[in-house]
């Protein structure tokens, strides 16, 4: 069937609620209202308000409650309304969610998912466009997953719900309604640890995730016209990184450009660049270059296109790598 990303997420959530009687959705305005992005539309009607729960406005409280729910055998999936509104819950995520299995010497995990619509490009007000994946991937014990299209959103969400450890599932909201694509009627869980080569190429690899995959593909199109064979890798898992796929891309193409919309300093692109030069230095024909957001607050929306990596910026940087 043809679904856009937000519909695919809604479908995956419905499927989880259907298949796993212990699953519970929680968040602000997700019930009758179906969430501010409408990802949960119809689910409360279908599954009742014991399974799809509106919470008070208290992110630390309800993320903490989700942790407690896991102890009694529930599998909570929490929606945070927008990227920046997860910050009140960071103490719960850093101090507890990420440490629970370790605190039980590996015996028990917290089977919970935090759904976090994130990123820019939607002309939203301040603090509705942040990309905080670095902080989740740096603080130990959390998995961080980011889909890039409807199908991967559905499949990875299923995988996240079934993985047995807390997953920060970041949804690039700019892609929510970016057209409908084929999604299988019955979704199967994807592979949570794997990056995916969305297009093959031999001269240069563009590594991207979330909304930046589309930008990377656009850049690859332009570069193809210039005669460059460009591989595009969709990272999907931010922590842990798919080291094998990244090192293959690096060593097979010799040139890598990483694209991320988050600020540059200590971003995911830094980790990838550091890793490639550590482990694939001999194969590299050029430094790994980064196209990133700037080290500044996400600008008010009239200037957001300046912050966000664009096709021209990626192309220009790729050319620099190709001409190195």
């Amino acid at each position, binding site marked *: 069937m043809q679904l856009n990303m937000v519909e695919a997420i809604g479908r995956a959530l419905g499927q989880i609620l259907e298949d796993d009687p212990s699953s519970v959705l929680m968040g*602000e*305005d997700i*019930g*009758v*209202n*179906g969430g*501010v992005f409408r990802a949960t539309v119809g689910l409360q009607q279908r599954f009742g308000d014991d399974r799809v729960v*509106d*919470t*008070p*406005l*208290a992110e*630390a*409280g309800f993320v903490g409650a989700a942790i407690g729910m896991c102890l009694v055998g529930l599998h909570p999936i929490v929606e945070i309304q927008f990227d*920046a*509104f997860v*910050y*009140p819950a960071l103490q719960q995520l850093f101090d507890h969610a990420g440490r629970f299995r370790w605190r039980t010497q590996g015996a028990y995990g917290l089977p919970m998912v935090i759904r976090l619509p994130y990123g820019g490009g939607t*002309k*939203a*007000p*301040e*603090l*509705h466009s942040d990309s905080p994946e670095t902080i989740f991937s740096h603080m130990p014990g959390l998995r961080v997953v980011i889909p890039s299209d409807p199908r991967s959103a559905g499949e990875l969400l299923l995988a996240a719900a079934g993985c047995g450890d807390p997953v920060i599932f970041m949804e690039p909201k700019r892609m929510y309604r970016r057209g409908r694509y084929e999604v299988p009627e019955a979704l199967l869980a994807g592979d949570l640890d794997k990056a995916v080569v969305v297009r093959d190429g031999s001269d240069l690899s563009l590594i991207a995730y979330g909304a930046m995959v589309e930008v990377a593909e656009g850049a690859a199109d332009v570069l193809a016209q210039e005669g460059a064979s460009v591989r595009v890798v969709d990272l999907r898992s931010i922590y842990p990184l798919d080291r094998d796929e990244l090192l293959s891309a690096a060593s097979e193409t010799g040139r890598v450009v990483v694209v991320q919309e988050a600020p*540059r*300093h200590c971003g995911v692109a830094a980790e990838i660049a550091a890793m490639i030069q550590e482990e694939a230095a001999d194969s590299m024909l050029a*430094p790994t*270059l*980064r*196209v990133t957001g*700037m*080290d*500044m*607050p996400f*600008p*008010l*929306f*009239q*200037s*957001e296109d*300046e*912050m966000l990596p664009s096709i021209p*910026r990626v192309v*220009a*940087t790729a*050319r*620099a790598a190709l*001409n*190195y």
Partner: protein
Amino acid sequence: MTEPSMTSPARPTVGAPGAQLLEGALTVLGDEPTSRVAHLLSLPQELPLALFSAMARLRAFDERAVILQRQGVIGTYPTYFGEEAVQAAGVLALSNEDWLFPTYRQTAAVTLRGCPPEVPLLMWRGHPGGWHDVMRYRVAPICVPIATNYPHAVGAAWGAKLKGEKVVALAFGGDGSTSAGEFHEACNLAAVVGAPVIFLVTNNQWAISTPISKQTRVTRLADKAAAYGMPGIRVDSFDVFACFEAVREAADRARAGLGPTLIEAVGYRLGPHGTADEPSMYRDQAQAGLWAAMEPLGRTEAALIEAGLADQQQLEQIRKSAAAALFDVADRLAATPLPPIEEIADSVHLRTPWSLSPERLHEPKWISNG
């Protein structure tokens, strides 16, 4: 655009959902006509009309903003239709030396301190000119993350107190914000240190689609003040005179060294949460419509006329000129040039780090061989 002016100042029929919440809330307009009139006449001469004018300006801004959003001149916009009384009273009951801490729902409050309306409109247009001059107006930047402005207000008030200044701080907020941890931390801290701060919480009974019954189990938010050992006052949010009294009294207490006050302005969200919201998804709009009679401009108009402080025409004129001042605002917005990203990058730190310097902002400029 303008409401039927035959509204009565009194309170609505109990048919409106949650109208019983108004019971016991401070009121002026809901009083007997004689005491209502007496109250208005007891006020400083200019005040009643000043409050009405402030509300008229806020209304004109809000109505214009909704139009501009539909026209695509600005982005998503959180209308405050029906909450003009709380805002006007909150600003006018304080002096210009006092600090205000608005949320996304009070972006025009700064205009009552002299800031041109283009400024908050530029905010919703996604333009950095939308950040008003914080020190000039003593109004903090509008605050989007719920409840995080409360501790700021406490710090400003407490800081002024430590400096020996008689400055008061007022933070705006909503019913939903009372569930957040920072509401609690702020109230508690304020009470402990005796900070001269006012928490002015508008209980419009909705946080987007979440009704107050799912937000908290108490029916009176003012009761939460007991947890901090500070007074909790309930006031009719549609009654600008009652709101004015409540804020003024809290400010007097604060200045007298008696510490913080929590004011619950009881009401109902007459409009949607914002332009992207569709209340019919989650509430009975016909029922909700019963609250329309409380709309504060109409009620104030009726009361001013009743008290002989103004006539219909005069008030109509105030509304009209408030609206007129905004007729060409779209042109002014369009004429405001967008600063280059280099300038924005340069505004983040006092000493701009190299990574935000013009040469470093866009990769190709500095990448070797780029």
